[in-house]
């Protein structure tokens, strides 16, 4: 017998299953209908939740920039995103001349779908999850690639030079940042010995942010880059390439790119707290498994706050700086972290406390050494390629005649 505080979703599912069997439905059909309903529920909830996220982020960004944020529609402006949504629903779709219709229309749908798909494998409590894939992490990485494909399709299909530039930048940026991201994901896989997301959570008696602080840092930076947000929003840099890949989009198609971006930001915080902060683990989760959900939400909102702070306080990178950061700092750092973990984790696995302390300290030492080396080798000043020209001076003759 499942109690309500163990897994309410399962309780409802069991009840529905019994109901459908009572109607005389075959077991397979009932199972399929249940799968369908569960998937629909898991798909709709994040999209509706996103409306709240947009309000939360705008409010917080407003506070960071010393203004109020939305505060007119409803209490604390909480109905602002609803009003925006209604407005964007009745906006005209303007398709540019010569656009490649199939990729052009597929891109916003695919960009939302790629983010939603990640939610299928995230464990919300001990038993509450869409599906416990044994290759969950590979699945998540694959979904990241799908989001990248959406941006390239948008850039290619729009028949616009700026959109194409944005798409090409997406190739350069998102592809590059995938390398250290995958490398940093290898560390939790090594420590837990599994690719399944729920297995990784269950093995985290000590949160992996202590065992692998550098991998956690790299995962945080690269996943923010992967979601294409400030300070890594070169794909849609307004001051350089108008609006990048979504220049030619309007109405709800444009809106869905934004929904995908906001939802992606929340999803990466969800992943970060699942993989590195212990997910649903916490005190008393054995007795009351539903508490795990609360822990996960609290952890996720803390990380989400950091993501927004990251966006609100850092200026945008130049593209060469961004590539340098990735290839010359994050990639070697992730490889070094991998080496450290490979050397230390297994011999010390008998002594968990010593293992945690040793991994934490050695990781931090590697970070400090590599950062100071980078500071020395890669000065922040630009190389001077030409002499500075003399400034124009006002002509004496002109001044006299005037």
């Amino acid at each position: 017998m499942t109690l309500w505080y163990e897994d309410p979703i399962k309780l409802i599912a069991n009840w529905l299953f019994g109901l459908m069997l009572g109607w005389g439905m075959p077991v397979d059909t009932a199972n399929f209908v249940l799968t369908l309903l569960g998937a629909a529920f898991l798909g709709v909830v994040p999209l509706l939740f996103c409306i709240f996220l947009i309000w939360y982020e705008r409010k917080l960004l407003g506070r960071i920039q010393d203004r109020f944020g939305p505060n007119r529609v409803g209490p604390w402006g909480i109905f602002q995103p609803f009003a925006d949504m209604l407005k964007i629903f009745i906006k005209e779709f303007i398709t540019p001349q010569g656009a490649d219709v199939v990729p052009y229309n597929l891109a916003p749908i695919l960009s939302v779908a790629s983010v939603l798909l990640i939610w299928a494998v995230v464990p919300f409590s001990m038993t509450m999850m869409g599906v416990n894939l044994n290759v969950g992490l590979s699945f998540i990485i694959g979904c990241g690639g799908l989001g990248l494909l959406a941006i390239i399709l948008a850039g290619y299909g729009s028949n616009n030079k700026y959109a194409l530039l944005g798409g090409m930048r997406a190739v350069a940026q998102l592809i590059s940042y995938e390398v250290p991201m995958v490398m940093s994901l290898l560390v939790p896989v090594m420590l837990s010995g599994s690719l399944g997301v729920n297995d990784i959570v269950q093995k985290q008696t000590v949160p992996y942010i202590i065992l692998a602080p550098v991998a956690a840092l790299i995962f945080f930076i690269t996943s923010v880059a992967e979601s294409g947000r400030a300070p890594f929003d070169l794909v849609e840099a307004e001051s350089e390439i108008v609006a990048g890949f979504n220049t030619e989009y309007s109405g709800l198609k444009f809106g869905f790119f934004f929904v995908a971006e906001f939802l992606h930001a929340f999803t990466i915080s969800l992943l970060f707290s699942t993989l590195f902060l212990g997910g649903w683990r916490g005190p008393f989760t054995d007795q009351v498994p539903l508490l795990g959900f609360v822990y996960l939400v609290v952890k996720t909102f803390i990380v989400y706050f950091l993501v927004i702070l990251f966006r609100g306080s850092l200026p945008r990178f130049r593209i060469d700086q961004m590539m340098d950061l990735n290839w010359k700092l994050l990639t070697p750092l992730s490889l070094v972290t991998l080496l450290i973990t490979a050397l230390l984790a297994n011999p010390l696995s008998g002594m968990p406390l010593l293992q945690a302390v040793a991994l934490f300290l050695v990781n931090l030492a590697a970070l400090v050494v590599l950062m100071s080396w980078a500071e020395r080798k890669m000065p922040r000043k630009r190389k001077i390629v030409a002499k500075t020209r003399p400034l124009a001076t006002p002509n004496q003759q002109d001044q006299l005649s005037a």
Partner: protein
Amino acid sequence: MLNDWLYVGVFFVIAMLLPGVAIAIAGLLSPKKPDPAKSSTYECGIETVGPSWVQFKAQYYIFTLIFLVFDVETVLLFPWAVAYNQLPFFAILEGIVFVLILLGGLVYAWRKRALEWI
């Protein structure tokens, strides 16, 4: 096991359908007043010059090539990482040598100035 992938398949279809249906509904609700000026391609206040599928510099290609090398090698590293806890010391050492070769490849690309964005 197969049930899991059935769920993923169903979820993929639903994840595509939800935004797709919303866009379709918005297409029904929204006004349709096409205009050649409105639907012309945007380009900084002038008409688009030449084709918009333009050529790009080779640096994008080089970065994609380096990415491909690293990504394929991570695919080889994932099974090693999953089995890491049960591996004997020698197998771990082999993995470390593999990562060192990767690091060597990165240094090579760096020295060849393939990582410069010029």
